[in-house]
């Protein structure tokens, strides 16, 4: 990797002007002031963390920095020079590149093409592809981050984490565009990664600091403090302050984010509230087999949260989907409350009182152009607002109630869900099953992915409330800590089989290390 660095001329401009500076940036959306006069300075060779609640305006700010959002007012200065960023190409020419919050690769192209997309350089001559050169270029980028992905693999055949690596390799292409030290923006890059992959990413971020500036967004505040030099905090579209990472604690950051005191230690603290001893098993799974899993046995009691952990490819997601009837099974019995569960389709599962929160929110979780209200009430419910005939008044009241309860930041219930920030979208998706009111088993695939600390603890609180009401839950957690904190019991899956079961009662939680041992 050092060879790559030495290949570059050292473009160290006298460290007078900051790499990037934002002054008074304003951006309105219908009904929302996403940015309300943001000031931000990104110094050279630093990793700047950006923290803020869901909807605080982080993504909007970053999009303005790469020319995707045209600010209504304010200035952007790059290395002491005022610039207008009209397009992503403009930004790249100024040395600014970004990895987006929602993955943005072309699924049916090869990894190599994605990496060089839009800046093929010598990989394409006169419109003609030179596949060998192209592959070499891509390989160089992958080498930089130490990834072993086959550059000619189709992107949709890669795992989520590998795709994330491809994105990072892709954004590093802007190094080739400019002789100045680039500014690399990472918008929630870790939300879909495993801890091992996060380590790899952080190694990359620290390497980048050698010759570039990095802006890093994450809702895991410990992570932010770990990798960043300095953390700037946004609240309601305004900069509310910044702290050197070395001196700050997660709780302090969180306080700045929400403007009042709060705690990051949410799962453990709240988990203590749990009291009920599990009664009879509500869900009994015996010998369930499918494409990517075999002979899975699983018991979940009413009021119990069972976490499933495993590395990528362990098959836990498919088990989850299979229980919801969204993935075919070849063998096995599933019994819910003494009745055989029909796995033939999602409708049957819904009717039996099973709910599912998918991990891929953008494509599977929500219907982008439809309103928050519609997304929340999409499921056919025996309850309240939709029967054979919709009762708009009741529906509105119900939806507004949940918007309030989950602090979903949206102008109104009629706003298209795609206009909400990622975190708020996730809350709506989760609310869908809570609205239904008759759910007996909830399958949660990364339910807090992309949620800010506050929202997350709100979700945890809700899940626990539901558990106390007797809902059984299967949780594929965002991190091992979350799995441990939230679950009463943890099932470890590896290679398509449920290998071990670890009890995790309050007060006697296993450590992450205990689990990692079982996972490999």
């Amino acid at each position: 990797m050092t060879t790559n660095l030495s290949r570059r001329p050292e473009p160290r401009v006298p460290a007078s002007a900051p790499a990037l500076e934002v002054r008074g940036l304003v951006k309105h959306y219908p009904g929302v002031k996403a940015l309300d006069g943001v000031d931000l300075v990104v110094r050279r060779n630093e990793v700047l963390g950006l923290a803020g609640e869901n909807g605080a305006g982080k993504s909007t700010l970053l999009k303005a920095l790469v020319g995707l959002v045209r600010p209504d007012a304010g200035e952007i200065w790059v290395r002491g020079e005022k610039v207008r960023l009209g397009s992503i190409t403009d930004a790249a020419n100024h040395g600014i590149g970004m990895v987006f919050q929602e993955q943005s690769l072309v699924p049916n192209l090869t990894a190599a093409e994605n990496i060089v997309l839009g800046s093929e350089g010598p990989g394409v001559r006169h419109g003609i592809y030179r596949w060998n050169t192209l592959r070499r270029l891509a390989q160089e980028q992958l080498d930089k981050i130490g990834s072993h992905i086959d550059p000619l693999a189709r992107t949709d055949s890669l795992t989520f984490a590998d795709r994330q690596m491809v994105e990072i390799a892709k954004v590093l292409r802007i190094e080739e565009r400019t002789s100045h030290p680039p500014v690399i923006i990472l918008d929630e890059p870790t939300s879909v990664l495993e801890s091992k992959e996060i380590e790899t990413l952080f190694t990359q971020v620290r390497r980048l600091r050698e010759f570039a500036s990095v802006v890093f967004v994450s809702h895991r505040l410990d992570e932010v403090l770990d990798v960043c030099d300095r953390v700037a905090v946004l609240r309601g579209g305004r900069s509310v302050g910044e702290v050197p990472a070395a001196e700050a604690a997660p709780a302090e950051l969180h306080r700045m984010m929400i403007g009042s005191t709060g705690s990051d230690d949410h799962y453990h603290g709240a988990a203590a509230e749990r009291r009920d001893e599990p009664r009879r098993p509500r869900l009994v799974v015996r010998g369930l087999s499918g494409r990517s899993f075999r002979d899975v046995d699983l018991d979940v009691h009413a009021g119990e949260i069972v976490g499933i952990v495993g590395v990528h490819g362990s098959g836990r997601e498919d088990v989850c989907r299979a229980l919801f009837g969204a993935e075919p099974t070849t063998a096995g019995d599933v019994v819910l409350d003494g009745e055989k569960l029909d796995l033939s389709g999602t409708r049957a599962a819904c009717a039996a009182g099973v709910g599912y929160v998918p991990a891929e929110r953008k494509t599977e979780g929500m219907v982008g152009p439809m309103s928050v209200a519609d997304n929340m009430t999409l499921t056919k419910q025996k309850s309240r607002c939709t029967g054979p005939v919709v009762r708009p008044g009741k529906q509105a009241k119900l939806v507004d109630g949940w918007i309030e309860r989950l602090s979903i930041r949206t102008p109104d219930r009629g706003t298209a869900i795609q206009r909400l920030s990622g975190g708020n979208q996730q809350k709506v998706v989760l609310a869908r099953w809570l609205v239904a009111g008759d759910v007996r088993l909830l399958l949660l695939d990364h339910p807090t992915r992309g949620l800010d600390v506050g929202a997350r603890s709100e979700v945890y609180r809700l899940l626990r409330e539901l558990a106390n009401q007797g809902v059984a839950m299967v949780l594929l957690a965002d991190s091992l800590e979350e799995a441990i904190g939230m679950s009463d019991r943890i099932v470890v899956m590896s290679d398509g089989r449920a290998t071990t079961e670890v009890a995790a009662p309050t007060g006697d939680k296993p450590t992450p290390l205990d689990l990692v041992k079982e996972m490999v």
Partner: protein
Amino acid sequence: MSLRDAGPPVALVVVFGVFAALSPGFRTLSNVQNVLDAAAVLTVVTCGITFVLMMGSIDLSAPGIMGASAIAVALLVANNRNDNDFGLLGVVVAVLLGAGLGCLSGLALVTLKVPSFMTTLGISAVGLGVATLMFAGVQPNVSDRMLEGLAVERFLGLAHLTWIAFACVLVGWLVQRYSRLGRYAFAIGGAEEVLALSGVRVAPYKVAVFTMAGAFYGLAGVMVTSQLGAGLVQAGKGYDFSAIAAAVVGGTLLIGGRGGILHSAVGVLLVTVLTNGLVQIGVSPYWQGGVQGLIVVAAVAAAVIPQRRRNQVTK
């Protein structure tokens, strides 16, 4: 080749086998040649439409563009209506006319933001209008040796037109595999917004794809004129749906992002073998269309069965 791509070729072999077993006339060498010759025009049209479908757009402009270029070429080469005798140049102009009309539908798509379904339908009407204007009530008959020869003269048992179709498939395949245009068309079908996020301006590529498709239709119009020895306004009638059907039967997805020229070529052969085979085994003309439709549906069904997924989206 993955399993999901194997369906259409297998279907082709099966259908071919069934007809060969049922009809002695079908399994003769001359009939195989005939099938290939008959597939020539549809192949060229499908070459063009494939790129459009790959982008996730749709193209219904073939009838209009083919009509315009058919009349244009008939009026430009030696003919009974005027004294023109531009020969090959006339062919080039007709193809360019096709490209120009295709370009118009692409431009309407990207500038007016009107879905391709409508722009191409509109351009088809415009093309037919232009063709009718040029037609002016008197059939232009071609007396150009070169153009007539394309349909009549043979090389290795196949008409020159058939070789032109082969060449189109080859060119199409090269474009799809090695050119930025082809790869970007594929990428646009996969995730158009991502291209924009990568700093690629997709509009020019879209226009280029429609232009290229128009050129292919233009060429197909010329080929029909060569076969019929006269310029017909209706030269392209029905080619829009048959080309789309052929491409889809071959495994190209209408939502874009999958398939390609070779898939489409297989699809064209499948459709042509069906048409020919049904006549050969003597199915009543009333029933032919129906049987053909049934087999196309069955072929696609058979092809999608191995790749069925629970939560798969079918539009």
